[in-house]
Structures are given as C-alpha cells and as structure tokens.
C-alpha cells in the first residue's frame, strides 16, 4: 500500500535538480557582491596609501618639526603646518563647545512633552533640513550676511576685552570667530538628530519610575534620561567633531586664509582643509608633498575621532529590552 503511494507520487512529482547555469549565476553573484563590498576596503586603503606615498618626501624632510613650525614659504621651501593644525583643532573644539548645549538642549526640548507633538516634529525636521544645505551655500551666507551682522558685536567684545590675547586684534571681516559660528550651524543638526534618537530610545519606564519617586522633570532629565542616553549623545558629539575638523568650504570662505599664527580669535587663520582648498590647485613640487603631509595629519585626526566615536558608542551603550 505504502509502496504504491510512493510510486504514484514519484510519477506526479519529480525532484528538480538545479541546472548548472543557475548554480553558476548564484556563485557568480556572490563573488560580485563580495568584490563590491571589498571596494570599501580598497578605496579606504588606497586613500591612505596614496596620501602617505605622496607625502613621504615631506615626512622625511621635516619629520615632526612640520607639526610645530608655522612657516609656509614656497620660495625657501620651508613648510610647517602648526597654524593650520591649531586652527583646525581650535575652530572645531570651540564650535563643539557652543553646539553641544544648543544641540542637546534642542533634542531634549523636542523629545519632552512640553509642547504639542506636531510642533516638535516640525522643529526636528527643520533642524535636519539644515543638514541638507550645502556648506558652500552656508559659506556664501556667512560671507555676505552673517559676518557683516556680527562684526559690530565682535568689535564691542574687542573694545572691552582687547587686553586678553584671545580678543587682541580688531575684527575686520573674515576670521576665526565667524568660522567657528558657521561650524556651529553645520554641526548642530548632527548633534541634535543623534541626541534626539538616543533620547527617544530611553525606555519610558525609567522616566515613570523617576516621576513616581517624586523627581521633577529636569531632575529626571539630568539624573536619569541623559545618563541613559549618554552613549548615543557622545557618539553624535564625536561624529560632529570629525565633521567639523574636515569641513572645508564654509570655513575656507570665511576664515581669512592666513598662515600667520595669532592667538586672537578675531584674526584670519587657517585650517588644514582650507589650506588644501586654497593652495592645492597652484602647488607644485615639495609644496604638494607638504600639503599631502597636512592632508595625512587631517586624515589621522578624523580617523582617530571616528574610531573613538564608534568605540565609545559600543562601550557606553546600555542595553534595554
């Protein structure tokens, strides 16, 4: 009986073996996508290799002296990137210090139930759209609108606090301070949207528990919500630090592009990326190599910040069910 059923089903259904062509397509497709995934690694390594290779001449000639000298003289072939490195670090960290309270404050405001949800959503979308505006347009706006507008205020600061080295030169247009402010505008959306996402992920039970034992709204935020979301917020802050260090166009248009070192935040300065944008086109010989060395330093700085950001998100993140 059983045997006959088997026979009957065998005549009705036959096992289809996969044709060789189908297997070849399968294997071929896998190899293609593996190759495409490897492209990321290939591109990344070749960027490092090419920038390093192009800068070897400068590295062997100047060594670490390059980092601490602020001369940039194509005639005597003396190059040092101190002004640019200082400018990169100073502008990005200063802009971060302004943007962190603003961005995290905004993120808290749009994740709390202070105002109706649709207004909060509109604010959230507007801040994210700010990230869509290209940096060259922000630069244009900074040059023609923002800088003339803030110059009188900077002049007041200069007149009152001019004895402090940081404010010791008269603001005459392009300079470090406008560059810092435009960087704030550029990194605000990153900090805000990442902080918003991590604040939203904090389970509501934590908030209810805090309210339940009598904590006020802001005690809850400072003692419970922010500590629970700190990994995401830190990650966002570090990502925007990397972005600020590499940002080119808006900064190049407004920082004044001067390699003379000055402590004053009102004087023209340089960042590594603005130096590249300004000089790379006309450079030749050992100047190209020195610019590549500066580019390598910028790459290493942003790489360290980004890797640290990824590490800290993994390290600090609390897992909630």
């Amino acid at each position: 009986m059983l045997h006959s059923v088997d026979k009957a089903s065998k005549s009705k259904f036959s096992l289809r073996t996969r044709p060789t062509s189908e297997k070849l397509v399968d294997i071929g497709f896998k190899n293609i996508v593996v190759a495409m995934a490897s492209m990321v690694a290939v591109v990344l390594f070749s960027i490092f290799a090419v920038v390093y290779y192009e800068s070897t001449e400068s590295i062997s000639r100047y060594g670490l002296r390059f980092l601490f000298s602020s001369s940039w003289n194509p005639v005597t072939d003396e190059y040092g990137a101190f002004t640019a490195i200082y400018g990169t670090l100073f502008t990005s960290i200063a802009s971060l210090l302004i943007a962190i309270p603003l961005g995290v404050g905004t993120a808290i405001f749009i994740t709390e139930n202070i105002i109706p949800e649709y207004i909060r959503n509109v604010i959230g979308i507007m801040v994210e759209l700010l990230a869509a505006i290209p940096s060259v347009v922000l630069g244009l706006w900074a040059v023609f609108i923002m800088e003339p507008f803030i110059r009188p205020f900077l002049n007041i600061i200069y007149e009152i606090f001019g004895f402090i080295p940081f404010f010791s030169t008269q603001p005459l247009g392009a300079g470090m301070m406008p560059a810092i402010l435009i960087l704030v505008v550029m990194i605000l959306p990153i900090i805000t949207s990442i902080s918003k996402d991590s604040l939203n992920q904090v389970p509501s039970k934590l908030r209810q528990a805090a309210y339940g034992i009598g904590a006020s709204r802001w005690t809850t935020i400072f003692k419970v919500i922010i500590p629970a979301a700190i990994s995401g917020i830190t990650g966002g802050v570090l990502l925007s630090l990397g972005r600020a260090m590499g940002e080119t166009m808006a900064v190049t248009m407004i920082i004044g592009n001067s390699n003379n070192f000055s402590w004053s935040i009102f004087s023209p300065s340089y960042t590594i990326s603005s130096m590249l944008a300004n000089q790379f086109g006309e450079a030749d010989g050992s100047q190209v190599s020195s610019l590549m060395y500066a580019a390598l330093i910028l790459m290493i700085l942003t790489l360290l910040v980004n890797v640290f950001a990824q590490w800290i998100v993994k390290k600090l993140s609390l897992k909630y069910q």
Partner: protein
Amino acid sequence: MNYTSQKSLTYNPSLTRNIGNKALTIISALFAIISVLPLILVISYVLIKGGSYINLETLILEPEPPGDDLLSAGGIGPAITGTFIMAVIASIISIPVGVGGGIYLAEYSKSGKFAKFIRFGSNVLAGVPSIIAGVFIYAIIVSTKILFGSMFSGIAGGISLSILMLPTIIKTTDEALKLVPNDMRRAAFGVGASKFTMITNITLPAAFSSISTGILLALARAAGETAPLIFTALFSRYYITSFDDLFYEMGSLSVLIYNFALEPYEAQNQLAWAASFILVVVLLSLNILSRWIGTLGSFSKNKV
C-alpha cells in the same frame, strides 16, 4: 515619631524646584529657537535674494569671465548641467557598488569577520573629510593623466563624488535588507528559489523604498559638495557639446558659488546667489522626496 506633614500636596509655583524647572524649560526652548533660526535665515536669504536674480537668461546663458561686463555676469546654465552630469556619473559608479556591498553584508555574511571589517570601514570612509576624496582623486587620476591623457575632468569629479556616496548607500542597503523579515527568505527557499532569485525577486523589492531613500540622501549630499570638485573637475564656463567634453574641466553649481562669491564684482556675486537658489531648492526637494519615499510601504523596526 510623627510622619504627618503640614505641607500642601498641590502644585506650588514658588518652590525652588518648580522655579528651576520653569527656567530650564525656558532655556531649552530658547536653545531650540536658536537652533532653528539659522535654517530660517539661510533659507529665506537664499530664496529671497537668490530668487530675485533668477530669470530665463540666468538659467540658460554661460557665465561671463569676472570683470568683463560689470552689469551682467551671464548665467549658470553650464553649471546646472555640469552638476547634473557629475551626479549621474557618481550614481552610475556608487549605486551598483554600494547596493552590491550592502547585499553582501546583509544577505551573505551577517556577522562574519570580513563583514564586520567592511561595516567598520564604511563608517570610517563616511568620516573621511570630503576634501581628502578630492586630494586622493587628484593624486591618482588628475596628476597621472590616467584617463586618456586628460587632467581635470568631469569624470574625475564624478568619481570623487562617488567615494562620498558609497558609504551611505552601503549602510542604508545593509540596514534596509536587515529589516526584511527572515520568514520571507525561508519562504522563497522553501519554494525552491536560488539565493540569487531570492535576493533579486524577494528581498531587494521588499527593501526598495528604504534603499532609494538612502540613495537620494547620498545623491543630495554629493550634489552639494564643493571640496572634492575644486581640484578634480575644476570649473568651466562652457556647455558640454560632445561626449569628449566629459574629459575636460567641467563647471558645477557649487564651484560656481565658491568662485563667484569671492569675486569683488557685484554681478558675479548675484550669480552666486542665483546658483545657491537652484542648488538649495533642488537639494531640499531631494531630501523631502526621500523622506516621502521612506514612508512608503517599507519595513520599519516597529512593524517587524
């Protein structure tokens, strides 16, 4: 021991903690207003100031060299086509590679060592400053004249933009495919589909809207980039007339803004504002379009 208290349970606005709460709420609202302010200011200046310089001539004519004619600076036509062409070149390179890489990460090696390394690598690549991409393409394509002896070219510009698009596309494809429920994969295998058929007919269509969102966002970012173009595509005032022109300098909206904003002539500055208007309108529409596509029938974390 006496546990009774004379204090009222009703809300008392003069308590320190309530005053502090109010103050902090007001401060956070102020911060939110300050954060939104730049967007409103930038957009309104670009739309009003830039929009006032837009007319048919500006959109079509070629830009004049600075200083030639103080009243008119020509138009931004070649820059619009240039930006479009370089965005297309960048997409042709980065979309297949990015989607393919994302397919590998999500479908073939979810947590293998190589996949982890590639994910890490694309995060690092996303953090590489855009100007470094320009320097890199300059070193391997422009200065070596590897592309049939041409130096600065629209193709080199497109390639440098594709480096910026690649990590975003890989990441969004990877994440979009991961959200497709495994039941769909098992069902496809169950009816005898090969892995290739399963991916192309089941998971890719299911993740299509999220992947397109990622591609549009990457495209919007690349089209607005300037830094990688200033030493790869350089700038040109002329329309391209033949295929060969792809191998020569090519103008773009962003480089036009950069060049003409720093010119001392009013007419050129106006052209920069007009170009910003076009660029901002296009990029904001791309962004809003991508958000809208993202809401169309895709798998969100909540649904699965």
